[in-house]
C-alpha cells in the first residue's frame, strides 16, 4: 500500500529565503502526525507544496502514491486541506459553499454527506446563513467541512485552532480524532504543543526550512534527557545531593535526575541522612521543553 504522504528531498527558495531545505518525510496511512516549528520554519510552505499551492524547486511529493504535479488530479482528490488563513466567499451561504466545493471535486448530489458534515460540526442550524454573518469560529468549521466534502483519505490542518475558542477547539479535536479512528490520515501544524502531545503519534519538527526531528512522540519525549524531582523535606538537603540541586520554589527543593532510576539514589541518600520526605513530585518533561530545547539549537 502506498504511503499516505511521501515527501522526498523537497527544497524551496523564495528569493534569499530558504523556505524548505531538503525535507524528506513519510507519513503512513492512519497516522496522526504533527508538524511543529516556530513561525517561518516552513510548515505552511510544506503544506502548500503538498496541496499544489506552491511548487518545490526540487524534490517530489506523493499523496497516496500520486505525484502532486504529474498526477495532480488524483493527488488532490486524496487530500483535504484546511488553510491557516480564515477565508470564505462572501457571496455564498454555508450550504452553497459546500455544494460548490463538492462540485469542484466533481461531485454532484453530495447533500447527504454535506448534511452529515454540517451536523457533526455543529453547523446544521447555520446551513442557509451567509458566511459573512458567521463568527470566526463558525467560519473555521465551514473550512473544515470544505476540506472534507470529497472524503479525502488524507487531511491536513494548518493551525486550525489559532484564535479559536476553547469549546470549538475541543469539539474540533474530537471530530478530527473520530476521523482518524475511521482511518483518515491526519497531519496538523499547531502552536499549541499540548495538542500535538495529546493527539499525535508522530511528530516532525522544522526549523528554518530544515527537518530537525522526525520521531514518534514517545521517543521524542524520552529525548528530554533529564527529569526533575521536587521535594519538600523535613530537614536540610544532605551535602551529597547538593550538586543535583537546580532551584528552590515554594519551599520545595528541585533536583535534577539523569533518568527516573536515579530517584532511587536520591531517596537512599535522604534516608541515610535521616531527612524525612514530606512531599515528592516527579516533573515529567513535556513536549514544550523538548521543543524549546531543539529550537534553541540543542541536540536530541
Amino acid at each position, binding site marked *: 500500500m502506498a504511503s499516505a504522504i511521501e515527501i522526498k528531498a523537497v527544497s524551496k527558495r*523564495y528569493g534569499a529565503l530558504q523556505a524548505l531545505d531538503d525535507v524528506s518525510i513519510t507519513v503512513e496511512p492512519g497516522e496522526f502526525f504533527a508538524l511543529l516549528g516556530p513561525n517561518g520554519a516552513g510548515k505552511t510552505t510544506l503544506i502548500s507544496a503538498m496541496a499544489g499551492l506552491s511548487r518545490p524547486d526540487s524534490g517530489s511529493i506523493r499523496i497516496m502514491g500520486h505525484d502532486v504535479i504529474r498526477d495532480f488530479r488524483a493527488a488532490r482528490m486524496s487530500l483535504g486541506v484546511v488553510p491557516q488563513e480564515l*477565508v470564505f466567499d462572501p*457571496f455564498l451561504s454555508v450550504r452553497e459553499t459546500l455544494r460548490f466545493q463538492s*462540485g*469542484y471535486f466533481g461531485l454532484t448530489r453530495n447533500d447527504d454527506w454535506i448534511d452529515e458534515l454540517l451536523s457533526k460540526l455543529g453547523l446544521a442550524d447555520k446551513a442557509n446563513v451567509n458566511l459573512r454573518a458567521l463568527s470566526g469560529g463558525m467560519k473555521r468549521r465551514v473550512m473544515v467541512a470544505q476540506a472534507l466534502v470529497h472524503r479525502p483519505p488524507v487531511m491536513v490542518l494548518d493551525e486550525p485552532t489559532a484564535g479559536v475558542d476553547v469549546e470549538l477547539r475541543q469539539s474540533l479535536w474530537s471530530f478530527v480524532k473520530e476521523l482518524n479512528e475511521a482511518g483518515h490520515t491526519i497531519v496538523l501544524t499547531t502552536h499549541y504543543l499540548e495538542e500535538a502531545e495529546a493527539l499525535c503519534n508522530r511528530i516532525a519538527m522544522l526549523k528554518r526550512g530544515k527537518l530537525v526531528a522526525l520521531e514518534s512522540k514517545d521517543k521524542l519525549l524520552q529525548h528530554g534527557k533529564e527529569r526533575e524531582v521536587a521535594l519538600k523535606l523535613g530537614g536540610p538537603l544532605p551535602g551529597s545531593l547538593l550538586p543535583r540541586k537546580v532551584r528552590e520554589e515554594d519551599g520545595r527543593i528541585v533536583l535534577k535526575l539523569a533518568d527516573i532510576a536515579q530517584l532511587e539514589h536520591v531517596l537512599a541518600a535522604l534516608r541515610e541522612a535521616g531527612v524525612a520526605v514530606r512531599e515528592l513530585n516527579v516533573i515529567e518533561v513535556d513536549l514544550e521543553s523538548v521543543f524549546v530545547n531543539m529550537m534553541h539549537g540543542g541536540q536530541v
Partner: protein
Amino acid sequence: MQGFLTLFRKELVRFWKVAFQTVAAPVLTALMYQLIFSHVLSRHVEAYPGVSYTAFLIPGLAMMSMAQNAFANSSSSLIQSKITGNIVFLLLPPLTALEFFGAYLLASIVRGVVVGAGVLLVTAWFGLPLPSHPLWVLSFAILGCGVLGTLGVIAGIWAEKFDQLAAFQNFLIMPLTFLSGVFYSINSLPPFWYVVSHVNPVFFMIDGFRYGFFGQADVSPWLSLSVVGGSFILLSGLALWLIKSGYKLRH
C-alpha cells in the same frame, strides 16, 4: 467536466446576485449615451447611406457595454478571490487549467451578452432595424465578449491590487473600447487616427457586429472575424499558459 460546470455556475451566481450593479447599471449608462448623443448628433451625421446616426450608434454602444462587462466579470471576480484569499478553494480541487479558464470565460461571455441584450432592448426604439445577418451579430457578440473576458482573466491573474486592475481597466480597456468607432464611422477620421483604429481589435468587434445589423460596415466582416478570432486564440493561449504555469496563483 463537473468541476468546470460548477465553477461556471458559481461565476453566474456571483454576478447575478449583484445584478443591479453588473447588469442594470451598464444598461442604464448605455441608454444615457444613446439619449445624449442621438439628441446632439442625429441631425449632423449620417454614418452610412440610409442609416441614421441614432441607429448607427446602437450596436456600437451595445458592443462597447458587452466588452467592458465581459472584462469586468472575470477580472473583478479573480482579483476579489485573490485579495480575500478564497481563491485557495479553487486551487485545492483537481480543476484543470482548461476547466478553470473555460468557466471564467464562459461566465464573462454570458454577462456580456446579457448586458448587450439589455442595451439593445432599451435602445432599439431609437430605430434599430432587425439584424440583416443575425449569425454575424451572434458570432461577434460571443467572440467579442470572449476576447475581453480572456483579457479579464489575464488582468485578474496579473494584478495584485485593485489599483493595478483599475489601471489596466482605465488605461487599456477604456481607450480601446472608446476609440473603436462606437460613436463614429472611422472613415470620417483623419488619416492618423484611421490607422490607429485599425490596430484596435475592439474596432473590428464593433464593425463586424454592426455589419450584422445593417449589412454594411467600414471593413469586410470576414476581416473583422479573422482579427477578432485571431486575438481570441492568441489571448486564450496566453491565459491558459499563465494558469497552467501557476503564474501569480501557485507560488
